[in-house]
């Protein structure tokens, strides 16, 4: 909270005083006339050179809060209270002053670097654009601007040669670093990073966090960072603020918040990102010691034999899956982990028969899958798919009933309604009738994922392939969905191949962990074996960069 004793001449770099932000009815689809309160009477002070992390679930108002700093909110938003940037009230600034302040004094690194860069301009052009707009006097010539761009890229550990590339030629982490370089163009005092690492995998995330932490250390920047992951914040920030429903529920030094959270909501957030090796966060479907159904090649329900998938792109062949063999026993939960680009999604698509393998085969119950799509019908009833983003994997125009019944209609199954009712009940959407007429946009993220799962359950499958089933969900919902998967596993004997880049998720639920790297399986063993006693170097390096393992900033 703000310290009222501070003399006015020693203004904080950034301060919110009793800020309340409400949105007009227009942002909500269901013509609710009441204004939605996004931030409620919040005060927060960030000292010069301070680093503050703001944590919270989506919808808790954290993005709205930081958007007030540069007045980036839509017109339907109404801001009350004061936002002081270096002692100056942002709300009282003229447009000309605001334009000068944006970027020069405070700049924002947006989430989703993939979409924030212009795809048809080179990196150099885009970084130089900000120089041209704000610092035309200091860097009057193209050569001077170019030199400055190289300097900025060096700050974020990118070679100057990368300046000539277009965004699509860069990896996600490189793009995010370009975004950070752009934020540094005018040497701002305050940098606001809105979920800078959310779309990145663990290895790249660690690199980006390292760059941010280094900049703060060396240049004395003031940093406000938003994330839903406490461990990520702790790796860069001194202080963590936890928000819920527009209010601060907990605030304190990073280590204290992470190690001894006081508010139940903070504990909930912390629990969603399990510490690998912590028995409390491991919740396997079976009690320890209870044998998993017999494993071994002859007992395998789903088997991948020496599978190769090649993609041809502009004359070159890319081998996405390289001679992979894998067997999943009935009722077993297997986690397939690896970085993005490791070929795990391609492997999953091949397992589902959505991707034709170049060589090798997938076998179900001992029989190889037919190559013709029409002959796959029986297989597709038995093995179901749960996709990463539940809002994208439901047709926005179809009702919940239609979405769940889709598989039943495709397979011409009788007593459709009873089955839909049962599937929704199994997915814990009760009473099922209440959800029949709803369309996806009326549901929360967790409910949507339950609908997707119900759609899979309607066909009474024996195996589930889930591609990052909780990656786009909030901390509390994440736990619920995982519990649901485990309960289905226990009660229906439903096995699952869970694809994820999140080792914590694997630790949460998996019986067995398979590590994939550059199209090959480098390690395969029980969860404890692989995660606690990794043999392969790649697994070790993955485990080293898991946020909870990163060093907490003192």
């Amino acid at each position, binding site marked *: 909270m703000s310290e009222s004793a501070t003399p006015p001449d020693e203004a904080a770099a950034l301060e919110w005083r009793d800020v309340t932000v409400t949105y007009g009815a227009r942002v909500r689809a269901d013509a609710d006339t009441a204004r939605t309160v996004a931030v409620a009477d919040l005060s927060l002070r960030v000292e010069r050179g301070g680093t503050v992390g703001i944590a919270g679930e989506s919808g808790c108002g954290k993005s709205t809060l930081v958007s007030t700093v540069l007045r980036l909110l839509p017109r339907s938003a109404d801001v009350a209270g004061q936002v002081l940037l270096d002692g100056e009230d942002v709300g009282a600034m003229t447009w000309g002053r605001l334009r000068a302040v944006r970027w020069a004094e405070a700049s924002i690194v947006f989430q989703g670097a993939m979409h924030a860069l212009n795809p048809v301009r080179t990196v150099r052009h885009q970084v130089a654009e900000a120089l041209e707009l704000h610092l035309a006097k200091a860097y009057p010539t193209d050569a001077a601007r170019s030199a400055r761009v190289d300097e900025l890229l060096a700050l974020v550990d990118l070679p100057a040669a990368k300046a000539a590339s277009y965004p699509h030629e860069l990896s996600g982490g490189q793009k995010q670093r370009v975004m950070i370089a752009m934020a540094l163009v005018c040497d701002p005092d305050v940098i606001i990073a809105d979920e800078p690492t959310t779309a990145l995998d663990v290895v790249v995330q660690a690199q980006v966090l390292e760059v941010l932490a280094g900049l703060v250390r060396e240049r004395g920047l003031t940093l406000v960072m938003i994330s839903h992951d406490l461990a990520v914040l702790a790796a860069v920030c001194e202080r963590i603020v936890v928000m819920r429903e527009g209010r601060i529920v907990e605030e304190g030094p990073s280590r204290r918040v992470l190690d001894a959270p006081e508010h139940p909501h903070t504990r909930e957030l912390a629990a969603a990102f399990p510490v690998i090796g912590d028995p409390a966060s491991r919740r396997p479907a079976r009690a320890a010691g209870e044998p998993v159904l017999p494993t071994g090649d002859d007992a395998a329900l789903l088997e991948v034999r020496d599978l190769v998938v090649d993609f041809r792109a502009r004359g070159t062949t890319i081998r996405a899956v390289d001679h992979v063999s894998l067997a999943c026993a009935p009722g077993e939960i297997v986690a397939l982990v690896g970085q993005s680009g490791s070929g795990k999604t391609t492997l999953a698509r091949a397992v589902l028969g959505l991707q034709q393998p170049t060589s090798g085969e997938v076998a179900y119950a001992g029989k190889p899958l037919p190559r013709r799509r029409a002959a796959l019908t029986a297989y597709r009833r038995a093995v179901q798919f749960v996709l990463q983003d539940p809002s994208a994997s439901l047709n926005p125009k179809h009702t919940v009933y239609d979405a769940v019944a889709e598989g039943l209609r495709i397979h011409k199954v009788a007593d459709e309604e009873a089955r839909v009712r049962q599937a929704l009940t199994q997915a814990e959407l009760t009473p099922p009738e209440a959800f029949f*007429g709803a369309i996806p946009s009326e549901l929360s993220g967790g409910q949507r994922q339950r609908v997707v799962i119900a759609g899979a359950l309607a066909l009474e499958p024996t195996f589930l392939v889930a591609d990052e089933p909780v990656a786009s969900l909030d901390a509390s919902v994440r736990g619920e969905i995982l519990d649901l998967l485990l309960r289905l596993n226990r009660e229906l004997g439903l096995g699952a191949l869970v694809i994820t880049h999140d080792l914590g998720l694997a630790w949460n639920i998996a019986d067995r962990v398979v590590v994939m790297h550059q199209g090959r399986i480098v390690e395969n063993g029980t969860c404890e074996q692989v995660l606690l006693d990794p043999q392969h170097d790649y697994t070790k390096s993955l485990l080293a960069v898991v946020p909870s393992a990163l060093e907490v900033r003192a």
Partner: protein
Amino acid sequence: MSAATWQRRRAGLRESAGEFASYRSGLVGAVLLVLVVLLALAAPPLVPRESLAVTQVTADRNEVPSLAHLLGTDSSGRDVLGMLLWGARASLLVGFAATAMSMVIGTVVGMAAGHFTGLTQGALMRVIDFFLVVPSLVLAIVLSTVLASGLWTIVIAIGVTSWASTARVVRAQTLTIESRAYIERSRALGAGDAHILGRHVLPAVMPLVLANTTLAVGAAIIAESTLAFLGLGDPTTYSWGSMLKRALDTGAATAGFWWQVLPPGIAIVLVVLCFTLVGRALESVLNPVLRSHR
């Protein structure tokens, strides 16, 4: 289909109708169009067909507009207003029928070209390209000379030559829909081509096709007039295009008999304008992106 679905669709329809009514130009166009359609339907009782037969006319040739003949008479002594009403029937019929034909072909081919890959797609795309680059008037002229002359020949000639641009638009929309995750989910559930096209793609491209339709009707009416004016229409039916042709053939246009030239010309412009206004408004209602740029 459950009751809730229908209820929501009805509510959606009501909302769209209200939205449409807020576009004044679209509303004016719609009202005028309804008026023209009603007049065209009422043509037989208002102006009996026999009264337009050359052997039955009592009026003089090229009469100036008067109370007896509000728009005067043509070179055979026939009532221009009566011919205009009968012409509306032909023009609207050809406009609607040709558009329907072109939309059906365009939607089916466009969806197929977007959905299928490899050889099928390549072949379909080349067919679309062919119809896109061939001058449609020339093709229509060739078709209407090859086929027996008549109103339906004109319909076919226009329908077959004007679907290519619709197909391209539909294909683009199909491609964006097919890249969505719910299509992947559907495939994993075991859906075949028919299911994906019918349940997911078609409902998504329909609004686009509908908005395109109203714009295409205007173009089809112009094409009909052009073909009739060039003498490729059915000589036994009255249409606005054939009225213009007759006015030219009998020298009315050069003799200063303006009432034989202006009414059909203005009628064409008016109806096409109405369809364009309605089409624009409909497009804005159905496409929220355009709505915000109003």
